[in-house]
Every structure is written in C-alpha cells, then in structure tokens.
C-alpha cells in the first residue's frame, strides 16, 4: 500500500516541469521576476540616453531610455524598463515590457507585459503573459511558425495595426 522509500517517483508528462524551447533554454528563469533584466551581461541603455537607429546583435538588452528605430536581437532578451520609451519594432527571443512601446513585438519564445507596460502595436509570440493593468492596443498572434494564415484572396493582407500615439 505504501510506496517504498527507494521507489522511483512516477512521472507523467503533466507532472514534468516545462522545458523551454532550445533557443530559449539557456535563458535565465528570473525572466519572470519584475526586474530580472538587470543582469550584469545585459547591455543597458539608461534613462538619460536617446537613440535613433537600429540595434542588432546577440546580447541581452535593457532599455530605460528612449529609442526610435528598430531592435533585432533574435537570440536575446530585450527588456523595456519602466522609463523606457520605444518607437520601434522589436524582434527578440524574449521581450519584457515595463514601459512604453509604440511598435510591433515579435518574440521567438515569449512576450511578457508587466502591469506598467504599454504596447501600441501587435504582439507575435508563441507565449504571451499579460499582467493585470497592462495596456495592449493591437493584435495578439500566437500562431507557431508555419501556421500563419494564408493571404486573403482579395489581396488584402492581414490587417496591420496602425500605431497610435500613446
């Protein structure tokens, strides 16, 4: 009746912890913590800095300043801090928004909108976490790659949300 002490614990698919996709596997799980992006190796753009242009590379990025342009860090995590103001499309493995983003977010792993986050644009990610109080005006698309909807017969592409001024 009782399980023997050395008996292996039964496992089931439901009981196993979630394993992140390979691309996101090395990512730190503290991503779920509110201020996790302050990891030492992350490049930081602080509140006093304003950037116009494109950012690309492989390192994690924390933005608490202003940025107008685009961010392409497909293997990294991008965090927009509470003071961050972006007018940019962001592509990354993981995107955490605590500030304002005026643009589209595309994440390979997931997008997290904190309660202070404001996104005016569309979100494309296989997983999306939205905290109470977050603002999102735009499309949420959680389709996996290859599941994208075929173009419409009349030639009208899927509606792209027109970014409104926050």
């Amino acid at each position, binding site marked *: 009746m009782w399980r023997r002490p050395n008996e292996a614990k039964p496992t089931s698919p439901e009981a196993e912890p979630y394993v992140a996709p390979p691309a996101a596997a090395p990512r730190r799980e503290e991503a779920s913590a509110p201020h996790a992006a302050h990891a030492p190796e992350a490049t930081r753009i602080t509140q006093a800095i304003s950037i116009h242009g494109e950012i690309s590379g492989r390192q994690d990025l924390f933005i608490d300043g202003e940025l107008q342009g685009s961010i392409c860090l497909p293997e990294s995590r991008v965090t927009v801090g509470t003071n961050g103001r972006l007018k940019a499309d962001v592509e990354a493995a993981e995107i955490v928004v605590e500030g304002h983003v005026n643009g589209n977010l595309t994440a390979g792993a997931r997008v997290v909108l904190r309660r202070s986050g404001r996104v005016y644009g569309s979100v494309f990610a296989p997983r999306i976490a*939205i*905290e109470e109080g977050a*603002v999102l005006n735009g499309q*949420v698309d959680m389709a996996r790659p290859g599941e994208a909807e075929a173009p419409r017969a009349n030639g009208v592409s899927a509606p792209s949300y027109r970014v409104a*001024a926050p």
Partner: protein
Amino acid sequence: MSLLGKTRGGTERASSAAPLPKTPGGNLRVSNALKDFLWLLSDVEHGHLLDLGPVAQSTVSFFTERGFKVYTEDVLRCWQQHLRQEEAKLRNAPAGSKMDLDRAALAENFMHENLAHPSETFHTVLAWDLLDYLDSELLPRVVARLFEILKPNGLVLGIFHSRTPESFHRYRVVDAQHVELIPAPTVFPPQRSLQNREILNLFSRFRTSKTFVGRDQLREALITR
C-alpha cells in the same frame, strides 16, 4: 460561416449549473450570451476577434487556444487619451488660433485614428459594456464602424446596464460559461442606460439581436451583422 443558419437542440446548451471556477476576489457571473456566442462561433476557423476592453490574459488565452487571432483595442482609454491630447493642443496653441473642440469634431477625429481596420476584418467583437460609457457623439460612430469592420454574419457581444452602474468594471472571459467582472478605476462616468428599443435603434443596420437579462442589472446582447 453561417451563423444564422444554426439551430440548436436543448442538449447542446451548456449547463448553467456548472460549478463556478475559483478566481481571486473575482465577481463571476454565468454568461448565457457567452455560451451562445461560442456556440455560434464554433464553426469559425482562424477567426479574428476584436476585444474593445482592456486586455486580459485569460480572454486572450481563451480565444487564441480556440484558433482565433485576437486584437485588443481599449477604446475608452484611447478616447481618454485623445481628449487629453486635444486639451493639451488647445493649451499650447498660440493666442488667437482657432481650434475645433466641439464633441462632434473630437469624435470624428478620434475615428480617423482608432478602430481603423479594413472592412469586414472581424468575425466577432467583444464590446462588453463600452457603449454605456461612450460619448453621445462617439457612440453612433463606433457602432457604424463596428458594422464596417465586421464580416457578414459577424457577432457583437455587448453588455448593457439596466441601471447606472455604481462602479467601473473590466471584463474577462474565465471559461466557456463565465465572465469575471473586475473592479477598476473609473475611466469615464457612465453616459446612459440604454433601453432595449434604443439598443435596437442603435444597431438598426444589423440583422438580428438577442438579449439575455440577468438578475444583476446587466443585459447581455448578441447582435449579428
């Protein structure tokens, strides 16, 4: 899709006696309109849904799991921002300059920048109780825009207060039978309590409507384009 062609048997209706899911501090209500709404949408594949309330994780998850593309546009908050921007423009305008700040012009300008989707984009719109809070100039414009952006036979799920609500709520779908009302800071005071006839007049271009009266002073309406 042929939403109007559907007939349903008594056994298809989900039981309203289902146990209430547990939510922290939530104000759950059984939503008969939601049940019909989901049933009418059950044939839709890769549907497009527009949520006009504040974004809610559970609502997004609920519909994306069912294959919908979800769009969120918090119209009331956008209207609030629009008014603030216009007020700021007025304050910063040079003396003597003319600015059109009558409500009709404000509403018209707002519609140029919001709910700006291609016609016949959406299979359904979650309007919640938005229409009770909209400015009288904005209300008919929003309803007209909903007609434009909905596909033929598309559905609007609306909630109308029978009495002036005492507090502002956000809404979110908890499961296929329940909607949660979450108290939230008031964005705008309620503008009206529409009577059934007024609702019908407001949606006169739409084909059908069905109203569900609750015991909590809320009337749910399913309106078909």
